[in-house]
């Protein structure tokens, strides 16, 4: 009995080990080859010779005249911050009202918002261009921020709704007796209690904004001269895709910030994700 259990455990460890190896190999190839010349990459893509390894190619990618990766980080980070702030600012009050109003209108509104979760973003990008053009926001960061916020609203509002509904109503009543208005109650009493769900929403929305490629590609377009990390990588790597001494360093620079953040915060990111999705 214990022997079969032991061997089953060994099989499990070996299997998971092999699967982990398969998952990590592409990352290993990415990191190792960012320090090598094209000739060395093609000679042996799996090995690294520390005597010839150099930061030259990373520096070249960093100083790429077509695409400043530092500016790309800056713009993408600004997008992440603006979309998160805006989404929380508009969704928290709406979710609060919907969670505290048990009438038919509120139910219908909630359904109206949730339906948006099933709309694939790519399908609205073409018509959105015409809406933004009519508003004079096409090709601008403001337009992109507003569109990205709109796509995060269904999920954000839905999880906020679920969370606020679990908070006792007596909190609101106590605040109302003390003369607090609805906004005051929301920002000073409800919102601080929502910290766990705020963290979840912040993490998930940040990931999707940081990694989005289709929206900035279509809304900003190459004409605007504004590049996020993804559209910049596309502009920098797209046409040189067999010059690996350019491909690997550029890709590595594009993923390093998010990988570092992930490794540092992996527990929060993964549990936040589970909490966010399972509530549905």
């Amino acid at each position: 009995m214990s022997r079969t259990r032991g061997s089953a455990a060994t099989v499990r460890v070996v299997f998971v080990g092999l699967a982990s190896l398969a998952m990590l190999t592409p990352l290993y190839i990415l990191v190792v080859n960012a320090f090598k010349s094209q000739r060395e990459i093609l000679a042996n893509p799996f090995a690294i010779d520390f005597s010839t390894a150099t930061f030259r190619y990373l520096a070249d990618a960093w100083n790429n005249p077509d695409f400043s990766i530092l500016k790309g980080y800056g713009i993408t980070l600004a997008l992440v911050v603006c979309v998160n702030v805006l989404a929380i600012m508009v969704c928290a009050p709406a979710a609060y009202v919907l969670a505290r109003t048990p009438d038919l209108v509120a139910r219908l509104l909630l359904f109206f918002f949730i339906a948006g979760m099933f709309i694939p973003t790519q399908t609205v990008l073409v018509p959105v261009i015409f809406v933004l053009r009519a508003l004079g926001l096409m090709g601008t960061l403001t337009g992109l921020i507003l569109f990205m916020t709109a796509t995060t609203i269904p999920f954000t509002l839905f999880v906020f709704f679920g969370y606020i509904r679990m908070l006792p109503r007596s909190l609101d009543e106590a605040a109302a007796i003390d003369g607090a208005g609805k906004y005051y109650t929301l920002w000073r009493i409800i919102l601080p209690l929502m910290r766990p769900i705020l963290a979840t929403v912040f993490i998930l929305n940040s990931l999707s904004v940081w990694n989005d490629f289709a929206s900035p590609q279509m809304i900003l377009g190459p004409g605007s001269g504004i590049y996020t990390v993804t559209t910049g990588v596309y502009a920098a790597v797209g046409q040189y895709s067999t010059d690996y001494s350019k491909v690997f360093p550029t890709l590595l620079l594009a993923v390093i910030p998010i990988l570092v953040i992930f490794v540092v915060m992996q527990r929060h990111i993964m549990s936040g994700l589970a909490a966010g999705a399972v509530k549905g």
Partner: protein
Amino acid sequence: MTRKNVSRIGAWRSAGVRAGMVAPAVLIYAALLVVPVGYAFYYSFTDYNGFPNRVPEFIGLDNYRTMFESHDITGTMVVTAIVAAVGAVAVNLAALGLALLLQKTNRFNTFGRVVMFYPHVLSALVVGFLWQAILGPQGVINTLLEKAGTSSLPFLSDPDGALWSMILVIVWSLFGVQLVLYLAGLQAVPQDLIEAARIDGAGRWGTFRAVTWPSLASTVTVAVITSCISLLKTYDVVVSLTGGGPAGSTKTLAYSILAVSFPQRKIGVASAQAVLLIVAAAIMAITVLVLRRRAENDAESIG
């Protein structure tokens, strides 16, 4: 009388305050998501090249006819369906299988979970470029094969090979999310039921079928819906991994909308394709939700 008036004013004011709190969310969401969906439906019945000085011209169902008669576009529907169906099965099998193996919390398993999940935090565009450098005709693997004297493998240069390679890459980058969902679901499986099944002499498989699987019903639904919807909109990976080729074998519907119909200024056809994708996503979501309700009823009967 006065008291009634006061309370009515209070109710009015609070209705106004409430409307004011909901309005910003409604406004942004409606203007940039609902109205565009409406426009997609409207443009899908018109001939329009997108120039501001032109007015969309109503042409009925012509765009839909064009869409279903064009082999190019029906091909993208088939590719999208294969990616969504095969991808969803593969993602969920891999995720559930590994979740069962990694469900105990210890250092080794935590490491395993992080390793399985990390591709999800990378952008799909970067993932595509990375795998293109690995699988491409002059990529890492084929260079090694040539050096070893064997012929290279057409991962991305053969139509079938490219499609399967793309699905593999998508599964690699996606299944971590579903793994996390299944891990969370497994924690909610009642331990006493599992022990009871063991005591009754059920093996691993028997326990899984009779206890674990029914208790996971709602998790399975969520995991399947989320994976199907993200697979239906596959776009970034196509751009960076294959560019839709060779011979259109990896062109998805989303890619066809954004990279073919739109640049050709066929706004009507692009919108008809978008409508098709929206309808497909809606049907999928509704189907799975209906199935979920049924499965949950089953689960309640054992709980």
